[in-house]
């Protein structure tokens, strides 16, 4: 403070905003709070909340589509006089609507991570109390939660409808719980893969394309080869081919453990033994994605 303070502060423009500085003596909630804030901000952001009206359109539209379809299934099921259960299994819902889920992920994963990378905001995070692991975990958890909301809410609608339709309670509850576990797994797997693709492609457009490619091309390839295998009578290959695309992985796991009917050709889903392999592959993919993300953010630190 020894030097003259008036030298540069004396100009008119800088004196105008001299309205007295108030220091902050309040609480600083630290790393855990920052991580939770990042999580909630990212989760809200995935649905366009707290962002511009334009960015709400797509996620809300997709969310609406999921819920409306669930409501229609409920309405039809209840109005079929002879029906004793819903027209669609809880576990089948996400498989049938995988395109909608894929679109949501493709639109929101780049929004969640590519923005920070592309506009180089990441150093601002890492110059604060949170660490790399907090950032990655918060982003992953937020994306998984967003997908879980997207895929779980229709199941809740289905379940509520089923109860209204006075279908068998125990039966429905079991299916509902199995469905929820399945979509939880799907949410974690999809968000991990989606974030990796998005984090590796800082340009948003490429990120969208990369996510869609990973989900649809692998599914297209797997189901085509499976169909060929079915036609040529080599049914044994079908259950192993399912390991090569995210959605068939989920299909395999829920067929093996969650009482689902497989969507594989001929219903040739994996049994319990192959199911363990499916589960291991799913968990390995999630862990691998986490490792890739951690690596990615080590490079962009500051």
């Amino acid at each position, binding site marked *: 403070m020894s030097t003259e303070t008036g030298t540069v502060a004396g100009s008119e423009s800088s004196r105008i905003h001299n309205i007295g500085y108030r220091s902050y003596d309040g609480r600083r909630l*630290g790393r855990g*709070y920052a991580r939770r804030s990042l999580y909630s901000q990212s989760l809200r952001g995935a649905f366009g909340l707290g962002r511009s009206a334009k960015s709400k359109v797509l996620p809300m539209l997709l969310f609406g589509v999921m819920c409306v379809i669930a409501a229609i299934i409920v309405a039809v099921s209840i109005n079929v006089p002879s029906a004793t259960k819903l027209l669609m299994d809880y576990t089948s819902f996400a498989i049938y609507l995988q395109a909608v889920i894929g679109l949501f992920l493709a639109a929101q994963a780049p929004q969640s991570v590519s923005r920070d990378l592309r*506009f180089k*905001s990441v*150093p601002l995070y*890492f110059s604060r*109390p949170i660490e790399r692991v907090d950032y990655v975990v918060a982003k992953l958890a937020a994306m998984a939660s967003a997908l879980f909301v997207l895929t779980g809410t229709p199941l809740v609608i289905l379940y509520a409808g089923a109860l209204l339709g006075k279908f068998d309670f125990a039966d429905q509850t079991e299916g509902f719980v199995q469905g929820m576990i399945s979509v939880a797994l799907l949410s974690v797997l999809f968000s991990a893969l989606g974030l990796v693709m998005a984090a590796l492609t800082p340009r948003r457009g490429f990120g969208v394309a990369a996510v869609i490619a990973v989900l649809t091309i692998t599914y297209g390839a797997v189901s085509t080869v499976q169909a060929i295998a079915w036609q040529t009578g080599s049914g044994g290959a079908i259950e192993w081919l399912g390991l090569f695309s995210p959605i068939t992985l989920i299909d395999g796991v829920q067929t093996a453990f969650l009482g689902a009917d497989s969507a594989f050709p001929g219903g040739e889903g994996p049994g319990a033994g192959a199911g363990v392999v499916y589960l291991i592959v799913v968990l390995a993919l999630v862990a691998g994605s986490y490792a890739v993300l951690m690596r990615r953010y080590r490079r962009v630190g500051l």
Partner: protein
Amino acid sequence: MIATESLSKRFPRVTALDRLSLDIGPGVTGLVGSNGAGKSTLIKILLGLSPATEGRAAVLGLDVATSGAAIRERVGYMPEHDCLPPDVSATEFVVHMARMSGLPPTAARERTADTLRHVGLYEERYRPIGGYSTGMKQRVKLAQALVHDPQLVLLDEPTNGLDPVGRDEMLGLIRRVHTDFGISVLVTSHLLGELERTCDHVVVIDGGTLLRSSSTSDFTQTTATLAVEVTDSDTHPDGTDALRQVLTRAGVTLIGHDGLDAQGLPGAGRILLVEAAGDETYDIVRDSVAGLGLGLVRMEQRRHHIAEVFRAEGAPASAVAAQSAPVTAGLRTEEGERS
């Protein structure tokens, strides 16, 4: 505020910092060095984001190796590069960053409004950042570094990309961060001339080693040097030369290369540097100019510049020092610096 002890950082092929020992107190401190001198590496280590190869460093009395998170809670950082998403408003962005620093939601909003006003952003803070000018973006970047009321801010090249007016405003703002807000500042630049206007203390590093660390007033006492520029007239086609002869006859000492500014700048040959023995020197200059019937363009006190100190010592800082030039050549210098 900051203390390092034989701090070294070696990468496989480069030594970024080489046994650097610093002791930086409160106030505004300038960290000068050419590109690649180790400024950014030092900042990374000070924020606890990159372990030092050897040596120790402490910020606010906390060891960077063990208390990184605690340091980062109390320190603000403004990166050199662009770091703002274009699709959110300054308010939303700074609120988010305040929460990332650990401020509760209400406090984050209040502090954001305050801080943005202090850095000079008013109504425009509700508009998306994408539409801001470079100067406004720099202010947002500064605001996000200040929003959690840190005890120390690290500003990495805050004047980068600004025009001369924007630079002056930013430097004024930086000065106020210390004088009005009571926050100590470490500001990096590769421009010596810029920092001597803002800093209490200047640290020069080059090639990862400490070149010099001392207070700005040590570098630049206001010495009795007068810069005089006059017009030509019909009777004296070379007004500068005529004045020089008159002043020499009057017994006034001319400094430098025959009294001419030796900076070698275009137009510098028109400036006479005169040693002012006292108030009477001003009178002699004034009377001499009037006697010759010339117009007096300027007569100003000139401070010594940090750069001159290095030049005189023949220190290896010449690369840095050469970038600094007199304030009188203000606009020209700024252009030269940027090219």
